[in-house]
């Protein structure tokens, strides 16, 4: 065999066998990096992807005793697998759960969402930088405190035996009010505490957007005699509209969970009780209640899937609408 033909077979080898060999060599050279990446990937498969496939029990007659892999082998539920979904729609609690979830989420969207924007505008209008820093720093402290503690603070203020508000009412000669068990107070408590906890935190993102605005715009507006209100309306707001839209889409996507703070479950669990149940129960809490206290696993998963589908629908719709109306979109 001549050297030339040897060379040509070598080239041929290079195209097939050689390529795999080179890939293997490359893989071996970065074996440590691959190890870290594969470890992370295996972890995701076990702790995220396997449970994702477990969602199929929403369409099956699954019993906790069947074990983890029983989720994949359990028999199909009646009514073509839609038994648990239909059970939920027939559930006497269905309208209560849906009403609370939707009303609370809409209240949080219409109040918890614009308040941080207004707060950011107010902070921006503040002149003294020392006071500005103090108030700002203080305002996002509640974000880092757990809902358990926030509930404790609420309890200190609103309980009937020695809460601040009821003590003051009593001093004024008025009747005590059962804030924590009274059905009619739950929505107010939930929305106000949500704003209290997250207002400062979400204002950061809007403040960052405001600080990115070109200052010459304000200067030329002021030369033209524009007032402070006019500057806010015609310069600040239009400049941060992109950020506002993105945060709006994000919060509409997490509407079922309770908006940006995602507080529906924590609030239902902590501030809910047997007396105000008809107002405090929300979808995330109902999933927990059906699943982990009543052990109706397939049923709870079906409700969870129902909730995820609504959220997905909301994200895509709000994204689509905002793209059509304003040109800003998230995807």
């Amino acid at each position, binding site marked *: 065999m001549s050297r030339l033909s040897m060379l040509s077979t070598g080239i041929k080898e290079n195209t097939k066998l050689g390529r795999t060999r080179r890939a293997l060599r490359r893989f071996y050279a970065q074996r*440590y990096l*691959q190890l870290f990446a594969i470890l992370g990937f295996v972890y995701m498969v076990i702790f995220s992807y396997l449970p994702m496939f477990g969602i199929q029990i929403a369409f099956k007659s699954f019993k906790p005793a069947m074990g983890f892999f029983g989720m994949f082998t359990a028999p199909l539920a009646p009514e073509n697998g839609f038994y648990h979904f239909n059970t939920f729609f027939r559930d006497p609690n269905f309208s209560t759960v849906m009403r609370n979830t939707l009303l609370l989420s809409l209240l949080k969207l219409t109040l918890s969402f614009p308040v941080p924007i207004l707060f950011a505008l107010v902070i921006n209008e503040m002149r003294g930088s020392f006071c500005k820093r103090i108030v700002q720093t203080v305002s996002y402290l509640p974000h880092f405190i757990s809902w358990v503690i926030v509930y404790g603070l609420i309890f200190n203020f609103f309980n009937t035996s020695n809460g601040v508000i009821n003590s003051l009412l009593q001093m004024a000669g008025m009747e005590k009010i059962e804030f924590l068990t009274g059905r009619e107070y739950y929505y107010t408590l939930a929305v106000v505490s949500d704003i209290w906890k997250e207002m400062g935190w979400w204002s950061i993102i809007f403040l960052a957007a405001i600080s990115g605005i070109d200052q010459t715009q304000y200067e030329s507006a002021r030369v033209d005699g524009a007032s402070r209100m006019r500057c806010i309306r015609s310069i600040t707001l239009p400049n941060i509209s992109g950020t506002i839209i993105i945060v709006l889409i994000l919060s509409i996507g997490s509407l079922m969970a309770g908006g940006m703070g995602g507080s529906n479950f924590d609030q239902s*669990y902590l501030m809910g009780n047997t007396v105000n149940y008809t107002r405090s129960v929300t979808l995330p809490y109902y999933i927990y209640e059906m699943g982990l206290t009543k052990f109706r696993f397939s049923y709870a998963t079906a409700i969870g899937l129902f909730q995820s589908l609504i959220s997905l629908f909301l994200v895509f719709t709000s994204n689509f609408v905002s793209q059509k109306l304003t040109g800003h979109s998230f995807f």
Partner: protein
Amino acid sequence: MASSKSHIRRGTEDRLISLVVGVVMLLVFVATIYPFWYSILLSFNEGTDALRGGIYFWPRKFTMDNYAAVFGIEYVPTAFVVSVSRTLLGTVVAVAFTGLFAFACSHKRLMFRRFYITAMIIIMYFSGGLIPQYMLYKELKLMNTFWVYIIPNLFASFNAIIMMNFFREIPESLEESARLDGANDLRVFFQIILPISKPLFATMALYSGVWHWNAWTDSAFFVTDKNLKTLSNVMITLINQSESAAQTVFGQINQREITYTAMTLRPAAMVICVVPIVIVYPFLQKYFVKGLLIGSLKD
């Protein structure tokens, strides 16, 4: 004439806005700080004295006993130990695990890089939900063990993205020269990347630490053993403790003829839960604005 008129108008509007701004800021300040201050002053006040009411700005009968008493309540000392250990261990392993994954994926030369990153992004938006998670932990025998606090929280996509963005900024020449000297990727990570990424790891550790310290749902869902509950979880029962029930629970620690009341023990326990966060708060603050912006706008 006209111009001076508009000048005056702008002056009054200006002052009005400044007034509104000042009032709003003061209100926000008081509304945020006072609930915490009220808890602090109650926690330093004697229990039965507090029941008489009228304490709003300063402790009336100062005492430190409430804090000692909180640690006398059943399950609080164990819960404190559980919370501290899960925070320390959970933070270290989570930052290391997520950090190594992020380090690997920050290299363009990594094979299957897009695949790994896509896998990571998908799990940010989709999850199996509560029940499949519960079944998994049961299968893995994590139920009712300390490890249910640690292992399921090893990896966080959000933190991985922040870390990847940071590692990508490190000049490649730095790594390249070390590799020419014969160092492998493992050594590069520990001897070059780790030392210059200290602020990043500190930030991630703070995020993760605060999260672990506050976490209470995992303890409520997956742990029934009362000796393994976290402090946040034990707090729930403590907060809901009524005054009469408190007398029977706290009765056993009435040793020096001091009567403890739920009204002052509750805030003392709450203060203990909040103090670690307030301590790390200045450090948290230094970096989190940047982190929040990267996380929300770049992905």
